[in-house]
């Protein structure tokens, strides 16, 4: 029945999604296997509280025809104000807030440059790719992140829809970033996008997802799976900026397999959401492979940002760097949870982890849970973490220069996150700074 999407999850729903999309048999079987695993698997017993996620109150697939409109007046003040600060056009505000339901959960990709296409770059939604390049998809789908990886990857594997598929042919260097925007357009509409990126030998690309504008939805679940293949000598950068509205559970599994001399860079900015659990990982499987992770998280009121990274060194001469910055205020909890593992055969590997946390008031928490396993005596692992408040001297100095206390605080926080911001494309960097300044308002004094 168009107009109202069905809630709840059952084997039948999974079958229906598959038949609506006209999928090949292997995908249908894969979904069903995943669903069976999902029902058996328990919710993780560590990390933030997920007991409030009601899997039966989420609608798992919204047909493109289903529309759900909301009055502009229903949109919370805070979200409107953020649009104002970021200077987003009215038309865009409308669908970000869900007033206009013109986008479904499939990816709206628009800015693929012609030149990239001419060079043979494939940039499609996952559903289209499954139809056009079935063998390429089948070869890579679910191979890095099997459905049995965790409960949420199983859920995604069962009900995925949307997401992007990117293939960069051998030797192609994509100059401009490939951008994809994901938007929730209906309340209680779970977003289960599935992204697969293959960077073939000697290629380079920069993929960007998300946007700094808040995505508004009520009690939603976002469980995405992202698989990235970085082949020999290739380099891929994956930038995510997400600003979910304050009621979204953002539970994402991201993993990259990096072959000989390949480089994988994750840049990850987490703002918003009620709970974020996200640990992008790099499996360094070829000699000389390198993994990098830059992570920024901001936890405000009622937010729990549980972010981190995993670096698994499985081959000699591999290296990795993790830089994580977190800011918590107004009772927010920000945690770093990470893993660095060096296997016994990974000779001469190096890993450096740095995590810094800033706590802005006495109600807020910061945790650091790193795990390091060094199984090889020729490899180095370094880890450093520090937690501090903004020092009174710094505030005093800036105030003596004529800044108000909150301006001073904003400036110090901007400086703190600068190492991450400078790796973002310019427009994102500007927006992110504005956003942080806005969040900082009224936080002191």
């Amino acid at each position, binding site marked *: 029945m168009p107009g109202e999407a069905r809630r709840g999850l059952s084997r039948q729903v999974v079958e229906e999604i598959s038949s609506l999309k006209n999928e090949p048999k292997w995908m249908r079987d894969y979904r069903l296997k995943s669903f069976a695993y999902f029902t058996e698997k328990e919710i993780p017993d560590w990390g933030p509280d997920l007991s409030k996620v009601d899997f039966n109150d989420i609608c798992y697939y919204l047909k493109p025809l289903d529309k759900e409109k909301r009055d502009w007046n229903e949109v919370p003040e805070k979200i409107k104000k953020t649009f104002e600060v970021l200077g987003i056009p009215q038309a865009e505000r409308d669908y970000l807030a869900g007033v206009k339901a013109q986008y479904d959960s499939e990816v709206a990709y628009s800015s693929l440059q012609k030149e990239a296409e001419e060079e043979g770059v494939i940039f499609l939604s996952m559903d289209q790719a499954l139809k056009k390049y079935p063998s390429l998809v089948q070869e890579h789908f679910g191979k890095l992140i099997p459905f049995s990886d965790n409960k949420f990857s199983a859920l995604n594997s069962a009900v995925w829809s949307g997401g992007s598929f990117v293939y960069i042919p051998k030797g192609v260097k994509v100059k401009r970033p490939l951008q994809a925007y994901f938007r929730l357009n209906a309340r209680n509409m779970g977003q289960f996008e599935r992204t697969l990126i293959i960077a073939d030998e000697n290629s380079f690309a920069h993929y960007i997802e998300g946007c700094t504008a808040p995505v508004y939805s009520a009690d939603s679940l976002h469980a995405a799976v992202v698989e990235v293949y970085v082949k020999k000598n290739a380099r891929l950068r994956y930038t995510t900026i997400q600003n979910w509205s304050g009621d979204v559970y953002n539970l994402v599994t991201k993993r990259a397999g990096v072959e000989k001399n390949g480089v994988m860079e994750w840049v990850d900015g987490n703002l918003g959401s009620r709970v974020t659990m996200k640990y992008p990982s790099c499996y360094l499987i070829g000699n000389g492979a390198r993994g990098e992770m830059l992570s920024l998280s901001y936890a405000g009121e009622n937010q729990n940002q549980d972010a981190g990274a995993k670096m698994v060194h499985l081959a000699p001469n591999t290296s990795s760097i993790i830089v994580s910055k977190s800011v918590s205020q107004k009772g927010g909890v920000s945690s770093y949870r990470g893993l660095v593992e060096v296997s016994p055969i990974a000779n001469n590997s190096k890993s450096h982890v740095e995590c810094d946390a800033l706590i802005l008031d006495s109600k807020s*928490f910061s945790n650091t849970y790193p795990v390091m396993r060094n199984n090889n*005596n020729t490899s180095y*692992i370094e880890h450093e973490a*520090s937690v501090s408040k903004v020092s009174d001297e710094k505030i005093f100095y800036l105030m003596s220069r004529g800044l108000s206390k909150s301006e001073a605080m904003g400036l110090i926080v901007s400086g703190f996150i600068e190492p991450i911001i400078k790796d973002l494309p310019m427009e994102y960097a500007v927006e992110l700074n504005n956003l942080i300044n806005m969040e900082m308002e009224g936080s002191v004094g």
Partner: protein
Amino acid sequence: MKIETININNNINTYKATEDTQYILQMDTSNNKYKSINEISLDFILEKEDLNLQIIGPMIIREEQNIKISIQVKHMVPNTSCEVLIKSVIFPNSSLDFLGRIYIDNDSRNTTASLKDNSLLIGEGARKFSRPVLEIHNNDVKAFHGSASGNIDPLSLYYLQSRGLNKSQSENILIEGFLDDLINRINDRGIRDKLIKELKFKEKEPII
């Protein structure tokens, strides 16, 4: 500062200091004593204001022993500080699994905490697992942890050998150098000398 030595052989122990204390962890891994111990857990709780703690742990892990140790420091009141410094030398086919947790309660304002855990992995099959955890529930703190594990620097080894020392002598010097700052932190001369003496073991038995 009061000095208290802790002989690591009991599985679980809790320490509540009443005055500024330097704890020195002692373990003798030259015999196989630790093979039968699965997990060692030491908790230090600061429940008195204006208290400073130092926990100093030199650890030599050898004879294919796998040691699991956890050290937790809990700051429950304002104006306290702690400094944990663990340095371990891990010999072939031995391993250390270290959990260091610093917890700072919401009431515990003006806290300084630091935890450092460095390991030297010597020879094949030396393994080091480390989980330095910080849980901070308050913003008036300075908390830090650092963990590093790695090999003897090959360039330093080469330099010493070029000066006419053999490989095992050079390694001894570098191991001593690695532990030097930790040993110098020990306020008690008797314990310090005893440790230095213990470190000389390798001159008789070349390790690699």
